[in-house]
């Protein structure tokens, strides 16, 4: 049985919500059961955003991600808040452009991705979250990167399809990095 629970967290405006939906759509394309759930309400004020994605090969019970197997932390507050909730032997990917490993957990795989820098290199800082998602996919292989690339059409409304190339590049750059981590073990890129 496969069941992956992923928490994606960061500032509002970092594309957290759509990155989560992208993962869910990619899971769908990969034939998995998927569920996506955002945090909602006044904790949105002050500019934080997060969502949980569940991927499973059987029916999904609760879609709430309270003890994630995987955390994607796009900024420091998110890292600080959620790093402790990740299950032992889980994975934490963090945006090392904006956050550092303040926690020092040894029982999880800790991967820093210089996502803002990479995204800026790709000409669009807004794709940073997809860089990290790409890294996760490269690292875990849970879904193919091509499924995620294809799913970009599902997530982006037609009038934003011009953004597909940048996002595709972000996923692929991230994935390459992720694969390299898998090969090289825990790393900060």
């Amino acid at each position: 049985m496969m069941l992956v629970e992923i928490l994606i967290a960061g500032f509002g405006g970092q594309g957290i919500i759509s990155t989560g939906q992208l993962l869910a759509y990619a899971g769908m394309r990969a034939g998995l059961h998927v569920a996506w759930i955002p945090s909602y309400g006044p904790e949105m004020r002050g500019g934080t955003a997060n969502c949980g994605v569940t991927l499973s090969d059987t029916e999904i019970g609760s879609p709430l991600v309270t003890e994630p197997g995987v955390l994607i932390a796009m900024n420091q507050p998110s890292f600080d808040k959620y790093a402790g909730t990740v299950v032992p032997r889980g994975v934490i990917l963090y945006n090392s452009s904006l956050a550092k490993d303040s926690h020092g957990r040894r029982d999880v795989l800790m991967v820093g991705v210089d996502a803002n820098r990479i995204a800026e290199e790709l000409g669009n800082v807004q794709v940073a979250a997809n860089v990290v998602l790409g890294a996760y996919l490269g690292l875990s292989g849970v879904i193919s990167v091509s499924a995620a690339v294809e799913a970009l059409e599902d997530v982006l409304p037609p009038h934003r399809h011009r953004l597909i190339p940048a996002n595709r590049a972000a996923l692929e750059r991230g994935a390459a990095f992720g694969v390299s981590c898998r090969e090289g073990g825990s790393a900060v890129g």
Partner: protein
Amino acid sequence: MPKVLMKGNEAFGEGAIRAGCRCTFAYPITPQSELTHFLARRLPEIGGVFVQAESEVSAINMVYGAAAAGARVLTSTSSPGISLMQEGLSYIAGARLPCVVVNVMRGGPGLGNIAPAQGDYWQAVKGGGHGDYRLIVLAPASVPEIIALMELAFDLADKYRNPVMVVGDGVLGQMMEPVELESGEIRTAPEKPWATTGQGDRPQRNVINSLHIVPEDNERFNLDQAAVFAEIRRREQRSEEYRTEDAELVLMAFGTVARVAKAAVDRARARGIRAGLIRPITLWPFPDESVRRAAAQAQQFLVVEMNLGQMLEDVRLSVNGKRPVHFYGRPGGTVPTVREILDEVSRIMG
């Protein structure tokens, strides 16, 4: 059509539209607001009406008017908003008007919070409003089921001329799951010769009213309704049974919790405990037939809810002292985990 990811809150709206509902009056509230956003956009596109009311009190009374005028009509809110609708719901039931009301429940009492909860079970099934009436109450547990039950809700409302409530919770409203939108036919409302549409060519004018100033008249109304309710109880009980055939322990849970409980059943079975699940789909009429049947064989019942124990009483009434009925609840906006339920199961069967 391809599968799309859809939010639970949007699915309530989509289901309503597919049921032929073209008319919604609502007031925003977390965690159901996306329903209003969805319908505020979609309904005008298809020639329908979306009115943002100035309050839930007003919304439910607009529903009263639209239902009286013969429309399939929806309103939607979350716990505090439902409390404000109690007078209106009692009037709608008293005037025998069909309509559908969605409650995406959140933590209470008072302002509480916006997290998922099931603390409004009693309010829904025993009648939070005054007087003897009943709501038909449906409880979907997934986004696709939301769509299906919304269609059923409108049909039942029209069939019995009674308000129907569909209850979810913050999880169900906020989550996205894949749905396949079959291009099935849009339903239409049956003829409503009683509707106040202006007399037109009718030989008689119509009146919509819940006032029966002479007590004997009101009593007659109540007794007639009691007969309708009895019929609903006889014909409309719905539940999902999961691995109950040989279950020694029957879990009972609805909505989001039932999903968690189902996972717990599998895990318990893996540990050699013969567990099963009855998931009421109609909270009223409560599926007491299923429970009674299960009680013939199961040794124990465990009710799991996101509250302090409300459906528990209906289970106990159905079991009627024949078996012990246990309870595990997490009130105030917390969702029980598979692990917690398993622990409880082990404690009981241990």
